[in-house]
């Protein structure tokens, strides 16, 4: 199977008054057709910026400094703004975190859906576009879609709004959907539903999905592969089974141990000591070294390169546990 | 890295980042200087009737009068030196504007803070009055008051104060409400400090920044309003010639080409108002949390 997305050595930096913020600092990973990949990291790790970089939605003072993004073998970084616009919402779609803020409050749902279709198909009639939109809404589990479409975003509940966002993403049959924390703002009960539905949807349509989240538990259920991100770099990649059952990078190990359900009753919760370094002031060597219990002098001074541990496993560490 | 500056010097360095605001402040201070020392630095006393002669009237700029003095900006219809008239005019315009501003500030702040503090029917009543008054344009209010009570210096100042107090009240109340819900007020309550003390020592200082912004912008507005009223002949009497009056007097000479009688006081007025507005504008940007990236 070939890759729908191939990212090579991507670097996205923000040039601010206070210094250069290296939000994404040399990451590489691939997504195969129809595959669901999880990009996991805490706040500030650069995972959302990765998503925006792929979409070409990085605003000043940010800039993609170097690297390659190949979508369907097309080099996106060479695309003109018009070409990118053609791609977005079409074969490459994105779902944002907070559905209340992503839908325009003064426009009706049908307006916001139909314009997405018409933006990529100038010849389609409004009626046809309406029908496609309506059917897609039904696909994501919204009942009586024909009436609901005439409503405004604030008349929907949080879970429904997110379903609408998902529907909008699916309107033009994308090859890849980037979902940036799509369930974080939802109630826990709804979360489960939406996760399940998205999984089914992608299976049915063969759409690849990049699920960006800070919640390892969420992505473990849905993804087939996981990339773990820390301070702008990917520290470990592998299949879900491998990462969860046999984490190798000290950070990943710490992450998994921190999940409360891993604890026995009465035991104090596990913490990774220390704090995420400021993105303006990243250390020279490994970004994690000052919190790592495996760290050596080497780690402080030089950045570990990526090691291909196996066909599916990549790890960025000098001292990982085998 | 950089050492922490004290509040005032930090404020000053942030303020001076904007060169335009800095220049405007300097210009405004210069104008204040002129206004205060007008009698001393004026080349002539334009209101000394013994020195003013109708023979000197309507002389263009840079011409000499019979006594050999140069009228740098020309003379008006009665033979008065424009430059001196403008200096005195600045005095009156600025004086009336600033004084009405200060009174309005005091009255408005009092009502605003007390409304926020005591709440209930008192607050509702005051704010209703403020709302209704603010929905009327200032010039209309001023016209109504002057039409009812007549013209004169005190009446004009009263009119200006009545027009402005509502802005101060609304701003003061809004900030006071925010402050009231902050923890330090609760703490002060717990210490059983008297209401008056809480209001003045605690809430008031924190309300100052937005009030200062409103103050500068409102003062500019008051000066503009007074000028308009005097221009229309409805504001200050001719014994207290503000810039507005000078411009009004000069208006009739416009059509015959003696433009300097109207234009120069107009320019002086414009510079005054613009400089205050630029300072106030920058202050507002500085205090606006939403613009901090």
């Amino acid at each position, binding site marked *: 199977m070939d890759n729908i997305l191939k990212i090579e050595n991507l670097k996205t930096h923000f040039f601010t008054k206070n210094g250069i913020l290296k939000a994404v600092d040399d990451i590489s990973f691939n997504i195969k057709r129809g595959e669901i990949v999880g990009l996991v990291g805490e706040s500030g790790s650069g995972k959302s910026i990765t998503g925006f970089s792929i979409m070409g*939605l990085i605003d000043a003072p940010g800039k993609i400094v170097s690297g390659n993004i190949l979508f369907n073998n097309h080099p996106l970084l060479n695309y003109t703004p018009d070409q990118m616009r053609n791609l977005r919402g079409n074969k490459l779609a994105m779902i944002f975190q907070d559905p209340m803020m*992503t839908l325009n409050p*003064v426009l009706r749902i049908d307006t916001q859906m139909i314009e997405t279709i018409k933006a990529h198909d100038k010849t389609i009639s409004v009626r046809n576009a309406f029908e496609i939109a309506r059917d897609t809404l039904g696909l994501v589990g919204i009942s009586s879609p024909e009436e609901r479409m005439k409503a405004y975003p604030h008349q929907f509940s949080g879970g429904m709004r997110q379903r609408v966002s998902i529907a909008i993403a699916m309107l033009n049959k994308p090859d890849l959907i980037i979902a940036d924390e799509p369930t974080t703002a939802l109630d826990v009960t709804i979360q489960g539903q939406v996760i399940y539905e998205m999984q089914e949807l992608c299976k049915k349509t063969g759409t690849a999905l990049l699920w960006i989240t800070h919640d390892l538990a969420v992505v473990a259920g849905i993804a087939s592969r996981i990339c773990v991100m820390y301070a702008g770099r990917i520290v470990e990649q592998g299949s879900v089974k491998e990462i969860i059952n046999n984490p190798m990078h000290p950070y990943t190990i710490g992450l998994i141990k921190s999940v409360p359900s891993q604890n026995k009753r009465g035991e104090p919760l596990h913490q990774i000591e220390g704090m995420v370094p400021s993105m303006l002031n990243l250390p020279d060597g490994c970004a994690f070294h000052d919190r790592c219990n495996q760290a050596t002098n080497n780690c402080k001074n030089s950045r570990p390169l990526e090691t291909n541990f196996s066909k599916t496993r990549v790890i960025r560490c000098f001292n990982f546990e085998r | 890295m950089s050492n922490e500056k004290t509040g005032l010097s930090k404020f000053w360095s942030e303020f001076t980042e904007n060169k335009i605001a800095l220049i405007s402040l300097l210009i405004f201070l210069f104008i204040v200087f002129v206004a205060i020392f007008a009698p001393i630095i004026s080349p002539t006393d334009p209101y000394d009737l013994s020195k003013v002669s109708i023979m000197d009237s309507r002389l263009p700029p840079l011409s000499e009068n019979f006594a050999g003095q140069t009228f740098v900006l020309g003379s008006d219809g009665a033979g008065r030196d424009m430059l001196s008239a403008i200096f005195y005019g600045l005095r009156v315009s600025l004086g009336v504007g600033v004084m009405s501003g200060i009174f309005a500030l005091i009255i408005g702040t009092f009502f605003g803070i007390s409304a926020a503090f005591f709440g209930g029917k008192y607050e509702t009543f005051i704010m209703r009055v403020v709302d209704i008054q603010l929905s009327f344009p200032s*010039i209309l209010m001023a016209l109504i008051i002057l039409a009812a009570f007549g013209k004169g210096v005190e009446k004009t100042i009263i009119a200006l104060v009545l027009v402005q107090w509502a802005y101060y009240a609304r701003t003061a109340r809004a900030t006071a409400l925010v402050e009231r819900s902050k923890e330090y007020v609760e703490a002060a309550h717990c210490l059983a400090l008297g209401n008056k003390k809480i209001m003045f020592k605690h809430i008031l200082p924190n309300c100052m920044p937005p009030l200062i912004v409103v103050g500068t912008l409102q003062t500019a507005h008051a000066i503009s309003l007074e*000028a308009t009223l005097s221009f229309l002949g409805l504001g200050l009497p001719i014994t207290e010639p503000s810039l507005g009056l000078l*411009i009004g007097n000069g208006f009739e000479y416009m059509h015959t080409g003696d433009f300097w009688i109207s*234009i120069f006081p107009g320019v002086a007025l414009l510079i005054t108002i613009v400089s205050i507005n630029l300072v106030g504008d920058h202050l507002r940007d500085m205090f606006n949390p939403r613009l901090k990236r």
Partner: protein
Amino acid sequence: MTAFLLKRSTQSLLVLFIMSLLVFSGVNLVGDPVEMLINPEADQEDVERVIRELGLDRPITEQYWFFLVNAFKGDLGTSFVFGEPALKLIIQRMPATLELAFFSLFISIIFALPLGIYAGLKPESKISKLIMAGSILGFSMPTFWVGIIFIMIFAVHLGWLPSTGRGEIGTFMGIHSSLFTLDGLSHIFLPALNLALFKLSSIVRLTRAGTREIIHQDYIKFARAKGLSENRVINTHLLKNILIPIVTVVGLEFGSLIAFSTVTETIFAWPGMGKLIIDSIYNLDRPVIVAYLMIIVFFFVFLNLIVDILYTILDPRVRIQGSK
């Protein structure tokens, strides 16, 4: 929606009532009503007759009742200067003022919206800085001063446009207005521009501030993520959101346009209500002043109502709550 309208209309009537009370007490309790409403040249016999006619010797509550009744009948007093009903004088001059105000509003919105949006989208560009500098100048310069400058440059110096009076009136679709003749346009242009300048500057600043806020909202980013053209993003997504606060401000400030027309009309000798009220204040023509006040109050209340209605039309969040 109808429940909302009803509620707002009743509120408006209440305000109108209170204002009439204020105007009435202002005239009768503050000043000397005899002096206010009776021509100072009248002799003692006439004065007494008029006092009886106007019911000024009756208790104050009865007087107020008469005042209301007369107001309903459309009688708000007779002008000293013109000897005609004050209301009639004002109504005669209203079209000229409304014409000026509407045209000014039109000019300010047409120019201010695009300028403001541009300045908001590209705040660092030279043009934006120029626009902002211009806007500060625009609302700093007192209206009367700008008027004088206009007259000086365009009428006296260049002689391009006339400086006084209203032009010929043309008819279009049953409306009489001087906007429909070339001569009329040449006469209205300077005063309208003069009146519009202040409004234009504040709308530009408002639009710019709104644009800067909205452009960073998530829904704008999402619209771009959908691949919509930049035109669509600005002209639909941005514009509809920005119009809400602007309409509110513009609507309420339309009243100030009417108020400031007093100055513009005086300078350009434009025969509208504004000039009438200024002249009346000079001449102490009190009935006209009272009548003008009542009409202005009525107008303002009405205006507030319209703005509220417009607001609900533009912002669906308010509309749907209001009908519950």
